């Protein structure tokens, strides 16, 4: 099978993320393994970057509101998929989905899924790379709304020119 036949899905949507459907769409006859990452809205959150947060550092989230620069985000999602294929040539299908809008705790907000013939071909590493890169270069932002007020979550990564 030619790589050009390998399915690549990228989507920015206000709809629910349907894992069953997305997995089916990146499963080929030759596929035997899939690694899927999903992120969800946390209702109880430690301060960003503070994994040893004390209980006193925890706070409640009512919801997150996501926005995207949609056409650029779609192009950058495609770039993330291209980077994954360049690094792990056994990858067959790739799905990259970001849900936007007002999202409440426990709701899946993002999905990265990679398929391959076997599990020892980089599918786990590829999915991990995909979510890491999405959080660096795909123009999407979220505002957290909590009982104490609202604030924009800002990333730290400054993309390089042409990246």
């Amino acid at each position: 099978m030619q790589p050009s036949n390998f399915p690549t899905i990228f989507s920015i949507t206000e709809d629910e993320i349907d894992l069953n459907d997305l997995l089916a769409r990146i499963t080929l006859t030759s596929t035997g393994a899939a690694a899927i990452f999903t992120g969800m809205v946390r209702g109880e959150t430690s301060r960003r970057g503070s994994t040893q947060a004390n209980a006193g550092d925890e706070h409640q989230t009512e919801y997150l509101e996501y926005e995207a620069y949609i056409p650029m985000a779609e192009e950058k999602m495609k770039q993330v998929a291209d980077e994954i294929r360049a690094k792990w040539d056994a990858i067959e299908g790739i799905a990259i989905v970001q849900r936007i809008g007002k999202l409440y705790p426990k709701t899946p907000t993002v999905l990265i899924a990679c398929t391959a013939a076997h599990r020892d071909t980089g599918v786990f590493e590829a999915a991990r790379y995909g979510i890491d890169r999405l959080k660096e270069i795909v123009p999407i932002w979220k505002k957290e709304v909590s009982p104490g007020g609202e604030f924009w979550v800002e990333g730290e990564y400054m993309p390089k020119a042409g990246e």
Partner: protein
Amino acid sequence: MNHVKLLFFATLRERMGIKTLDLDVPADLTIQGLKDRLSAEYPKVNASLKSVVVSINREFAPDESVIPQNAEIGMFPPVSGG
């Protein structure tokens, strides 16, 4: 003069109070020059300009980039999707 369309997102959009801005700019204006102009005309956006990320036609662009004719310029904070 070049025509450019600015798109603001997240904190930039909130501080500017607008989503888009159409501008005519000198043909040799750089991203740095555009930032300086915004800073002067919209001082309320200054706090966001320190760590702003800029795209030209949906590609990340450094301060020294010269803005082409009819460019679509995105201005936003470091991304926080996921």
